[in-house]
């Protein structure tokens, strides 16, 4: 019988190696695998490349990982929120690299990796500073730039429900980057609120089919979830 469940977040991150590239799901807190992230912080791997929309808040969560000096490079669309102090301090000291990618391009590059595509042309960014060094061409009268797929060694995502086959269901705005990220890494683990038996997520309600997911770990939401998460985003 297939059983993709893990008992702890420590197991989820045990294989992360120095220099690994990690897709980190979530947009703000919805869909952010916060407890896997805390386990990753304790695990100790360094020189990480993190792909995430933002740069995390304060000195916890992704902010904590950066604060600890574990992150070599961030690939993000919006690391400039006032709450992103850890990143900003290290970035200004030249201790973290940044690859800035428009949000939709970031999502699409991750999707392209998961879909086995070699890249795509997009209008977004053509003729701007973010087109620097990128191949460009005019397609149907529109200036476009070439964007490459973005794949990773690990993807950590958060869903609402999961089953032992790796099927995932997201509540409300949790889907965000998690859906493409779950398709684009060699090793994918989902943190979920609730483990259900197969069929507990109806076949029409599976947002990430189990084929994409290596492991699922159930966590108890922090009782101060809402309070904690309103700061530092």
């Amino acid at each position, binding site marked *: 019988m297939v059983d993709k469940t893990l008992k702890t977040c420590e197991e989820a991150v045990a294989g992360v190696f120095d220099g690994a590239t990690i897709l980190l799901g979530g*947009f*703000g*807190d*919805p*869909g952010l695998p916060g407890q896997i992230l805390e386990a990753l912080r304790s695990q100790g791997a360094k020189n990480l490349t993190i792909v995430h929309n933002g740069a995390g808040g304060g000195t916890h969560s992704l902010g904590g990982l950066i604060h600890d000096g574990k992150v070599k490079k961030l690939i*993000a*669309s*919006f*690391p*400039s*929120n006032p709450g*992103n102090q850890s*990143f*900003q301090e290290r*970035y*200004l000291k030249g201790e973290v690299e*940044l690859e*800035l*990618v*428009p*949000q*939709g*391009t970031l*999502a*699409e590059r991750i*999707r392209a990796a998961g879909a086995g595509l070699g890249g795509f042309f*997009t*209008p*977004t*960014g*053509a*003729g*701007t*500073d*973010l087109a620097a060094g990128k191949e460009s061409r005019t397609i149907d009268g529109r200036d476009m730039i070439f964007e490459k797929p973005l794949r990773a060694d690990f993807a950590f995502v958060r869903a*609402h429900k999961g089953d032992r086959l790796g099927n995932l269901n*997201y*509540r*409300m*705005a*949790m*889907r*965000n*980057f*998690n*859906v*493409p990220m779950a398709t684009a890494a060699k090793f994918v683990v989902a943190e979920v609120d609730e483990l259900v038996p197969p069929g507990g997520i109806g076949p029409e309600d599976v*947002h990430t089919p189990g084929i994409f997911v290596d492991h699922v770990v159930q966590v108890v939401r922090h009782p101060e*979830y*809402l309070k904690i*998460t309103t700061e530092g*985003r």
Partner: protein
Amino acid sequence: MSLTREGIAYRVACDLPNGAYVNLGIGIPTLVSSFIGPDKEVFFHSENGILGMGPIAKPGTEDPDLINAGKQYVTVLPGASFFDHPTSFSMIRGGHIDYAVLGALEVAANGDLANWRTPGEKVPGVGGAMDLAFGAQNVIVTMTHVTNKGKPKILSKCTLPLTAPRCVKHIFTDMAVIDVTPEGLVLREFAPGLDPKAVQAQTEAPLRVPASCREMSVPANFQQTAQPVR
């Protein structure tokens, strides 16, 4: 006289047609949703995977899984939908969003938009700004007419890095409503108490003033006698 921030948002809301799909940026744009009258349905999109957003959640009713792109706790209306980022940005890049209402640092006479890098800002961030500026059917800019140092923001040519070239269709400020046309900027309306000359004086790029140019119709509570909004 000039418009308050709410006044600018109100004036934009008046122009959004029934059935429009609209993405609102952070700042003044966010205020637009509260001024959609009961006579029309306008659908608000959030980059993080929401269509059909309702008002900001009331204190105590926030759902931790439901925020907008500005990270505020929000609500959804009947008929809303949730989806992932690739789908959300397909809506944007694919031209399905009818109106993106965005803030701006500078707008040029040809519609060039600069709104993603502030002068002196050391850590860059772009978010969904470029996607919206390149992708939406109509880019509407809301902003104060001049900087907080009194310098014009509507220019012959942008000095800051562009978000997207030739994308802005309409500009709504505390002083005016301006359309970007192939023939340049056209002053459609000026704030109550102003006149075209007063607007031009605060606008570096030349404005055409058609015969149809008129004073805005905005309720008194959205007007202020003080300096224009900073």
